[in-house]
């Protein structure tokens, strides 16, 4: 302790020549630099690349063409078809996952015998890496040795093996089935956690008021789950819009581009055709779409949550 003239009041211990904020910045600086290097630098370089016509096999010959890459894509029907397919995939996949996930969560919430085991087992599809899921389903859907064909044939539902992935629209739906199997556990886990937080008194009160099981679900459980549903929707929608690896393995964008989603377009342009400029432009367009979706969700659902509480 430093000596002081007045014994009651101690002198300020901090007698720095350097302000607090500067010390704070100095401590944070390494991380900020790291983040700049990892995030900002590639982001800016990609943005600059998207404004040029660059082909990897001729990197010296890149020409500045402004927003031409973007306008090329926005004017191309093929691009909007890909966006449409991605939207279809997202809406159906997330919709089914949400409904199925909530149903399974409600079922587990009944706490029947062995519910803990089911809650654990339900994680398995989600824990399997997406590549493994895609490979597995590719074999299941196989036209000559697939398990799906085998099962339906033995049940008598079909009289000869069907090439399920032959038709573009059917292939998209089968990819959705694989994705739903893979991602529903995520919804289940979030919903179970949220349901555990709903106080029992609410259900008792509802019962006393004469509510049926269905009514108590809609009037008690669902409003309380709004926050969790918002989380699930945002996360799953953003992930589904950017789907790539399951499509790459399962159908490779085919048949006849039937599963060519927007991320696959970005992959093709960048890594197959080596059109770096166009690939960068598509990537930014994808980010833009995702941002718009996230903003819409937050606006629509967050306000509702505010009202409910």
């Amino acid at each position, binding site marked *: 302790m430093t000596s002081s003239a007045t014994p009651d009041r101690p002198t300020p211990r901090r007698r720095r020549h350097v302000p607090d904020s500067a010390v704070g910045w100095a401590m944070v600086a390494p991380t900020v630099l790291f983040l700049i290097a990892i995030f900002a630098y590639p982001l800016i370089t990609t943005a600059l690349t998207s404004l040029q016509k660059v082909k990897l*096999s001729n990197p010296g010959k890149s020409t500045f063409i402004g927003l031409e890459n973007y306008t090329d894509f926005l004017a191309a029907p093929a691009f909007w078809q890909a966006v449409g397919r991605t939207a279809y995939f997202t809406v159906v996949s997330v919709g089914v996952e949400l409904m199925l996930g909530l149903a399974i969560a409600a079922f587990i919430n009944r706490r029947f015998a062995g519910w803990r085991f089911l809650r654990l087992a339900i994680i398995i599809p989600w824990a399997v890496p997406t590549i493994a899921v895609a490979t597995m389903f590719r074999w299941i859907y196989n036209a000559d040795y697939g398990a799906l064909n085998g099962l339906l044939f033995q049940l008598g539902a079909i009289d000869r093996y069907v*090439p399920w992935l032959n038709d*573009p629209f059917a292939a998209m739906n089968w990819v959705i089935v694989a994705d739903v199997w893979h991602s529903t556990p995520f919804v289940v886990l979030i919903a179970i956690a949220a349901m555990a937080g709903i106080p029992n008194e609410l259900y008792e009160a509802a019962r006393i008021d004469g509510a049926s099981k269905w009514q108590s679900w809609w009037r008690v459980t669902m409003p309380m789950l709004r926050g969790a549903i918002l989380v699930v929707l945002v996360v799953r929608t953003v992930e589904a819009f950017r789907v790539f690896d399951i499509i790459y393995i399962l159908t490779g964008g085919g048949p006849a581009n039937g599963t060519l989603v927007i991320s696959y377009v970005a992959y093709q342009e960048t890594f197959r055709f080596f059109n770096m400029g166009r690939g960068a432009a598509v990537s930014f367009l994808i980010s833009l779409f995702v941002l718009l979706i996230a903003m819409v969700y937050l606006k629509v659902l967050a306000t509702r949550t505010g009202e409910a509480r």
Partner: protein
Amino acid sequence: MIRPGKARTGLMAMAMAFALVGGSAIGVVAQDKVTLNMISMAQAGMTPDEMNAVIVEFVALNPNVEIVPEYVAYDALHDKIATGMAAGQSPFDIMLVDDIWFPEFAEAGWLKDISADVPPEMLADSSPAAWDIVSYNGAQYGLPWLLDQLYFYYNADMLAAAGFDAPPTTWEEMLTQAQAMQEQGIAESPVVLALGQIEASITELVVFLYGAGGAFFDEAGAPVFNSPEAVAAVQWLVDGIASGLINPASTTYGEEDVRNTMSAGKAAFGVNWAYMLDLANNPDESTVAGQIQMAVMPVFQSGKDAGIESASNNGSMGFGVSAGSEHSAEALAFIEYLTSKDVQKRYAAHVTPLWTSLYADPELLAAQPVLLDMFAKQWPTAHVRPKVPYYIELSQTLQVALQEALIGAKSPQQALDGAVAVAVELAGQQ
């Protein structure tokens, strides 16, 4: 304040470091060693062990040369070369290049034009089809190495059971035989092809296109794969699939699926590369071991009438030297050694030699009677895929067009016309 003792220790440490680095630098300069970086494939052809053995031989003959090989899967090979060379550092001196990439790499200036360095005895003792692999715009950018082509496979037992004694020589004849097999319950879809939305479908398109008397580009370089012959060939595929004689799942199949289907005894006719012969006749891999044989690739009746005996796809690879290599002379020496008659003869079991005289070599014929004989028969009629620098985009367009035609989303004429329009656009952008 650094104490004097510490300063002295620091100076001594620095002096030692300089001595070590300087000493090793002098050591390197004194040996004058040339290091070549090579990138090759870890599948098909020679195994990495075999390639390393050849490298050891070469280094023994050229002690000042060191070769550092790298082996990657085929799918990674193109991207690794492209991204490495695009960075401008010329990380590879010796590169294994697939025939469809030669135009792209040559155009980008990554491959050295070695037309003047091709050994004359090699030129004299090989067929033009071998040089189609490595040529672009009349110049040679590599030496042919991994020669392969599509073969026509058939199940001899199923053929005999259906009452036929010889494999078909025309596609129409094959369908007749397939019809009989289907009626007799021998196979539900006797023909299986690799027509998925992958590169394999283009290799098979080559077979049917040229078998109908068509081509991809004419002499002037204009795309003609929407000609009446081409449309007829694709229409034949569509009809075959619709009738069920060609396995409808073929539109999602690759080479391995064709092999699996034939090996499971579910198909009597198929088209695939050389590698299938051994595997389909291997009891560990196939339920029909011993029944799968090769025949000369059939053509369409219209092609036969026009004098075309057979048509297949030449899907080979060659070794090139990097244009920016500092040691191109040594690199060239190595690939010449690798493709020399002696080395090729010793490894003929895994890599078909490009030396025509070796096809009649009694030792090789004794070791591989079927494959070598069939190779020699089919090779003169093997066609390469289009040699254009924008091949990858063209291939993608054609794959989608073929798929659209095969699943009935568009008529063959519409689909091929669309592909031709894209090809014209791609050519204009060059």
